[in-house]
């Protein structure tokens, strides 16, 4: 009995070695559950619609291998390992820099191309030459935000709320701080960690600084608690957020306190210019056939473009060889993406000429709208 | 136990020859039939047969680790019976939970008193009557207990843990009486008490017994216990090695030698 059991266990272990072989696969890992689930799913819908539009490449059907990183770095590593295992041709993902960077650490040594849909921290593409992204970097976003705070809002002292355990937030705060101080302003950084609900200690610290502008670099899960608490404790200053605030969890969770909350985020059709705007609007129409427009944001466009550039690169490379795809991607020039033209030539994997939008939440009663203020592009 | 000692009485169920209230002799109040118990793999009691008739006072004697307290816990249902049967008031009781056995008329004065140290004397007494509806009967019983132990009446509001050992023993006995039991089980009521107190306690036990409440007392202090008990059992390594009327046991040579240590 005992010996049989041992033998059986051994046989089962060997059975685990069995491998599954797939066709042309593109791995997609995103925040489909957890604290960033809204954005992650919006992005995934973009990828899916793009996939419906271009289901084949080089005559082969593209199969999406979707993996949920559960909004954790560890989950991202698990996903990346799974992709390497499945032998995917390339990888799309993910939204947050905190999740993209660990996955890039797996994919770069494995020599698999990764295109991040939402990671704006410069460090992501610095991991290596196989890592690309669709959006702008936080260096740009931080500088734009600093200019907005200094010029448009006329602020001279800014309190920066920073989520200290997130790459994106820490990076963006740093760039904003540098840019704003270069403009001659004063800043203070108030740290919090993920999942903070009680901000009274931070707000205590805010009092002595008494800023005339607040910059929030974290995510909506925390903003939904922070902003109402700020308002309730008598802070009426304008608040500017980063693209992580572009999430329905903010106005849904925080309610009317978010009235007038401004944020910079990925370009939507309204802020794009020229042919890109038309392509984006066209894509929106296609998107509407499968999903509701509630799920259409700049991240959706970004997800679609991640798919599109990869298909283009595979076509250009003419094979599914990893190195060939990387080379094709690195030589991409003026690709007509739905989020703007994409050029990787001469960059570290961040496209040149990205467009950013400035938006604001506006409330009437309990319902809110996301108003487009203007588009900003990198000179 | 030597052969001579064993000869005095077979373990178990012979009717006692001398007892104060012969009227209530028909039906045993409590009966252990071949009870065996284990703590894990260790057998503590082996084939124990005992019987207590209504109105009787029976004592259980034995050295340390001979299984006395285990017998008591088995009767109460704190230790399970692994073999054999336990009957109480004509009912099979070895499957019943402790609270049911208490409700059917058992009460216990545990070893070392075990009063609730952070409850007042009154609350301790209330705990004794836990399974009964509060009401007039409660006051009646309280009055009886306070009459028996006037000292408790003076200290109704005091915390149990602050009383002396003798007072705690009284409280424990009073607590047991509060449930109007048919059978009181006492575990070493004399332990750690001054000789005068021991006698006082046994006198009260006798008084209680004379009200028709059966008493089953586990003791090391054999002389005192046998002096007032009707019958006794002697336990050794989990087995009943001697049993019989108290007088006979007191006179038994083997008993003296093995247990009392007399030469």
């Amino acid at each position, binding site marked *: 009995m005992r010996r049989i059991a041992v033998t059986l266990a051994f046989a089962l272990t060997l059975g685990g070695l069995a491998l599954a072989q797939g066709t042309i696969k593109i791995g997609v890992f995103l925040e489909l*559950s*957890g*604290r960033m*689930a809204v954005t992650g799913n919006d992005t995934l819908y973009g990828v899916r619609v793009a996939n419906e539009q271009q289901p084949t490449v080089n005559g082969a059907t593209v199969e999406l291998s979707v993996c949920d990183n*559960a909004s954790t770095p560890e989950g991202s590593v698990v996903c990346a390992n799974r992709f390497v295992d499945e032998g995917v041709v390339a990888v799309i993902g993910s939204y947050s820099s905190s999740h993209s960077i660990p996955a890039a650490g797996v994919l770069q040594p494995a020599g698999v191309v990764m295109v991040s849909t939402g990671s704006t921290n410069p460090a992501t593409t610095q991991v290596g030459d196989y890592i690309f992204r669709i959006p702008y970097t936080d260096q740009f976003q931080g500088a734009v935000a600093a200019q907005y705070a200094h010029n448009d809002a006329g602020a001279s002292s800014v309190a920066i709320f920073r989520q200290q355990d997130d790459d994106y937030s820490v990076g963006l705060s740093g760039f904003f701080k540098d840019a704003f101080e270069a403009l001659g302003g004063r800043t*203070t950084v*108030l*740290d919090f960690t993920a*999942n903070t*609900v*009680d901000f*009274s*200690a*931070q707000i*205590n*610290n805010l*009092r*002595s*600084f*008494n800023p005339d502008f607040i910059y929030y670099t974290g995510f909506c*899960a*925390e903003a*939904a*608690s922070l902003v*109402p*608490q700020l308002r*309730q*404790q*008598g802070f009426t200053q304008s608040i500017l957020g980063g693209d992580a605030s572009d999430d329905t*969890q903010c106005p*849904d*969770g*925080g*309610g009317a306190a978010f009235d007038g909350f401004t944020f910079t985020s990925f370009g939507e059709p309204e802020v794009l210019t020229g042919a890109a705007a038309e392509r984006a609007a066209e894509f929106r129409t296609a998107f509407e056939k499968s999903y509701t427009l509630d799920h259409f944001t700049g991240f959706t466009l970004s997800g679609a473009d991640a798919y599109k550039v990869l298909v283009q690169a595979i076509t250009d490379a003419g094979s599914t060889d990893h190195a060939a795809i990387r080379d094709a991607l690195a030589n991409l020039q003026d690709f007509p993406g739905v989020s703007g033209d994409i050029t990787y030539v001469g960059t570290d994997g961040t496209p040149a000429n990205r467009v950013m939008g400035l938006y604001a939440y506006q409330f009437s009663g309990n319902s809110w709208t996301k108003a487009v203020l203007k588009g900003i592009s990198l000179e | 136990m030597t052969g001579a000692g064993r000869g005095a009485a077979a373990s178990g169920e012979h009717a006692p020859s001398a007892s104060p209230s012969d009227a209530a002799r028909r039906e045993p109040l409590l009966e252990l039939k071949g009870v065996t118990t284990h703590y894990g793999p260790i057998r503590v009691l082996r084939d124990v047969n005992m019987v207590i008739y209504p109105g009787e006072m029976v004592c259980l004697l034995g050295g340390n680790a001979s299984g006395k307290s285990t017998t008591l816990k088995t009767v*109460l249902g*704190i230790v399970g019976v692994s073999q054999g049967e336990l009957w109480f008031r004509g009912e099979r009781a070895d499957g019943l*939970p*402790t*609270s049911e056995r*208490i*409700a059917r008329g058992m009460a*216990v004065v*545990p070893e070392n008193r*075990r*009063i*609730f*140290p*952070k*409850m007042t004397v009154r*609350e301790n007494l*209330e*705990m*004794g009557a*836990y*399974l009964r509806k*509060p009401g007039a009967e409660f006051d009646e019983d309280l009055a009886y207990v306070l009459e028996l132990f006037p000292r408790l009446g003076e200290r109704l509001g005091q*915390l149990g*843990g602050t009383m002396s050992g003798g007072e705690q023993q009284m409280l424990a006995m009073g*607590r047991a009486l509060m*449930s109007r039991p048919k059978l009181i089980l006492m575990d070493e009521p004399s332990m750690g008490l001054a000789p005068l107190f021991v006698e006082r306690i046994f006198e009260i036990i006798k008084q209680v017994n004379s009200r028709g409440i059966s008493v089953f007392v586990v003791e090391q202090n054999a002389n005192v216990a046998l002096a007032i008990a009707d019958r006794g059992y002697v336990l050794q390594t989990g087995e009943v090695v001697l049993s019989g009327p108290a007088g006979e046991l007191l006179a038994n040579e083997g008993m003296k030698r093995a247990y009392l240590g007399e030469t």
Partner: protein
Amino acid sequence: MAASAVVPRRRPWALWLVVLGGLGLITWRMLYLHGVNEAFNAAFFAGAVVRSLQLGSLYALIALGYTMVYGIIRLINFAHGEVFMVGAFAAYFLFSRTPFSWPVALLVAAAIAFGVLQFLNFWRGRARDPIVLAGALVVFAVVAFALASTQLGWFWAMVASMFVTGVLGMTIDRVAYRPLRGAPRNSMLITAIAVSFFLQNFGILAFSNRQTPFRPASFFTGPLQFQVFGEPLFTSWMIVLVPSVTAVLVVALTLFVTRTRLGKAMRATAQDAETARMMGVNVDRVIATTFLLGSMLAAAAGVLWGMTFGSINQPAIFGILPGIKAFAAAVIGGIGSLPGAVVGGVLLGFLENFLTALFPRTEYFSGITEYKDTFAFLAMIVILLVRPSGIVGEDLSEKV
């Protein structure tokens, strides 16, 4: 568990000296801060005080559950934080969802009625009593109707959530802990940790893992503004509601424990379970009651917590930090002692909230906000090493 804790002998004047000295230092620090920066005015510190009290009350409510369970079965109920989480989420569903569809309402009502049946049997001690059945039927009808036709206000949501969570606490005890009575304490503790993990992940499964806004329509969440020495203090009515609800519940609990028969049985079981059993106390039932009460308090704390901060965390982590801190509060106050839990909770609330106000970020000092969460742990370690019985508790450490 002792409602009337025996305070060991100590020199009262030394205690007073320490207290007065501490107050003096705090006053001096407040005056100094005010001198440094105008923002640290009376309203600032008054705000810190009321928030400390508010947070402390919440900790106290949770801590009571830990301390009751520890007092009675000497188990650190690791899952208590998750019970608190479930309490908050249950209430969230009750007040935020539009009326439930009839099948769902009937199902939920049946479950609740079954719980009521259990309860009433519980206290009456007689199963299948017609009155009990009738009561359960009435509850069933009322609950089903309420769920299907109206959206509950925060108060009724809280009451209902307390009930649901209480049943959950009892179930946890019955399924996971009761089979382990008498097992080594480590096994029980490991099981408790496992239950806590189970509930966290079950929360992900059932409530979806994201931070959830918690804003029932209520007068109390509205803003409250008053003047402290001419300076405005912005806050909400929650600073009144939370301590008052806590006070009511603590008084009710104290009355229950000292006055009722079951409450006395609870204290007796805590002091000496075996003897309590010998008195005819159904110890398992008493333990179940303890879990019921502790879980109900935790549910109330969950609702108040959500209303105070306007949102509740994702289920996977919501219970952890409040749970651990409340446990620390119970230890600080003296685990096993009801007043200890309250004292410890309020003290921890002050330690966490008022200290950050006393040492805020200034131009010369980066503040102690970042260390806030470690206070509870460090205070707990220090208390355990210096005085394991806590501030008002008695020694429960294992005897030789």
